[in-house]
């Protein structure tokens, strides 16, 4: 089978394994599927890591924005405002230019030299931007959910003598997640979509190792035929979106398991979030 050879050559091309040279002529459907699928690894890498790390910062920011102390509230509000109010594309550019200006030999902090060179590479630099960006968007979602935690739940917590960390951990936080989860699912889907921007902003694709859209536009440029590579990307992303909805739906069921009746099915409404 010829296609198996292509898969073994190019399946991990985006990570730098396998054949270095990209196909130049006579593009087969198999090559396009394999290379674009290989690029998807980067989209998944960016999306999963940014979401996983952004979740914690988002919770902290949401709590900060709901704080009574202006000294905590204001920075959180500004952070959310800046990252939600400006295009991700500009954020990528700005971050890249900032990272480039950092001294090459690293920054001395308390006698320890912090390496800065990897920040100009996409795998780290773009991840930082995506992490901050998704934190801001998720924080706004969580903040909205935090404000709609039912009053009765909090009164009941007080009545049971829960306070401070225990009250947050056992009452406020689960309820906040439960209320915010459908919107958070949308945010996750949007984040995966946003990962396609990485290699179209300043971050260079080192040795032509890019994400799915990078390879798709490579093929579209070479063949001058957009009708094959872009639908392939679309196909991969629809599958990814369905997987995200499935995974987040399971979490949603778990978060709602104590509620009477079944948990409401998450409906994906893209326009209502960002």
């Amino acid at each position, binding site marked *: 089978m010829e296609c198996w050879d292509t898969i073994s050559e190019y399946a991990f091309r985006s990570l730098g394994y396998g054949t270095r040279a990209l196909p130049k002529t006579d593009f087969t459907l198999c090559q396009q599927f394999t290379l674009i699928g290989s690029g998807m690894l980067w989209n998944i890498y960016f999306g999963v890591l940014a979401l996983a790390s952004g979740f914690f910062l988002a919770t902290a920011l949401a709590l900060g924005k709901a704080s009574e102390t202006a000294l905590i509230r204001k920075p959180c509000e500004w952070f959310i405002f800046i990252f939600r109010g400006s295009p991700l594309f500009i954020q990528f550019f700005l971050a890249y230019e900032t990272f480039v200006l950092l001294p090459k030999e690293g920054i001395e902090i308390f006698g320890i030299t912090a390496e800065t060179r990897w920040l100009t590479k996409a795998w780290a630099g773009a991840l930082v931007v995506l992490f901050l960006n998704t934190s801001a968007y998720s924080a706004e979602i969580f903040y909205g959910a935090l404000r709609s935690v039912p009053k009765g739940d909090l009164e009941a917590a007080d009545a049971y003598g829960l306070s401070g960390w225990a009250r947050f951990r056992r009452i406020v936080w689960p309820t906040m997640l439960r209320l915010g989860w459908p919107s958070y699912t949308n945010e996750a889907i949007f984040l995966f979509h946003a990962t396609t921007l990485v290699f179209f902003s300043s971050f260079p694709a080192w040795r032509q190792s890019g994400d799915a859209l990078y390879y798709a536009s490579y093929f579209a440029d070479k063949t001058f035929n*957009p009708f094959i590579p872009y639908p392939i990307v679309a196909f991969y992303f629809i599958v990814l979106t369905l997987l995200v909805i499935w995974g987040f739906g399971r979490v949603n069921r778990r978060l709602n398991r104590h509620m009477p009746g079944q948990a409401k099915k998450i409906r994906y409404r893209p326009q*209502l979030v960002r």
Partner: protein
Amino acid sequence: MFSNCTDPSALEGLSWLACYLTNGKHLTAYASVGTVLFLLLVTAPAALAFGFAGAVAARSRVAPLRWLGQGYTSVVRGVPDIVFFLFFVIALDQGFEWMRHQVLCPDWSEPIRRGNDFVVCPAAKLPLSTAPQWVHETYGFLLAVLTFAIVFGAFAANVLSGAMKAVPNAQIETAQAYGMTERQSFWRILVPQMWIFALPGLSNLWMLLVKATPLLFLLGVEDIVYWARELGGTKGKVFAYPHPDWRLWYFLALLVFYLSLTQISEVVLGRITRRLSRGQATFAGEKQRKAAA
């Protein structure tokens, strides 16, 4: 621009900055802000029209039309919008050229797709190879507008079809009881009432659209991102003034520009929401009524 800018050696500090920021290339760059605003002004109504058509088609009684509308609204859901941007710009271009080719050169015998090339007869080229530069630029911009309108039209169709469903059914039933035809009840009852339900979604969509405008750069339009890169870079093709890498400052300016744009939009949209809530049987409308009474 200023008269004292003619002697470069005399310039220092603020007067240098004033001269630097008003040189010819910078004035062109400021004009590209107009390009962005113009794109927004043209695309928003166009996308709304596409969305309205899509939403109407999605609730049509004719099955093929309904499938078309539903397919249109759902296809952009799972796929990143930038994929559509990159796709439609080439696909529309080739589509137009192909149509013109069919009309203008019917006796052309060679195939259009030759290996890795897309060749139409010279008369069908868009724009014609003899056309002046501004025609090429305008054509590129129009393609970008159409692409934006199609993609955001699908989002808008989603919002509008939800809003149409949200109008209380009793309203339509009452209209029918008064003897209105389906067309009349649609235009006189449903459409005027749906906007308040559509507004939160449409506001979000506007924000999305504002934040998608830098993607114009990827479509090959000389927009503000293009100019920020060219003017800020140490040495560009278009800007010969030697200076260190100042792109950071240019992108910071862009950041501020977009932040103020979204902030202004938010204030204006808040006002429109209040205006449209007037007299509505919703929570906000009721609050306004009580405040006035």
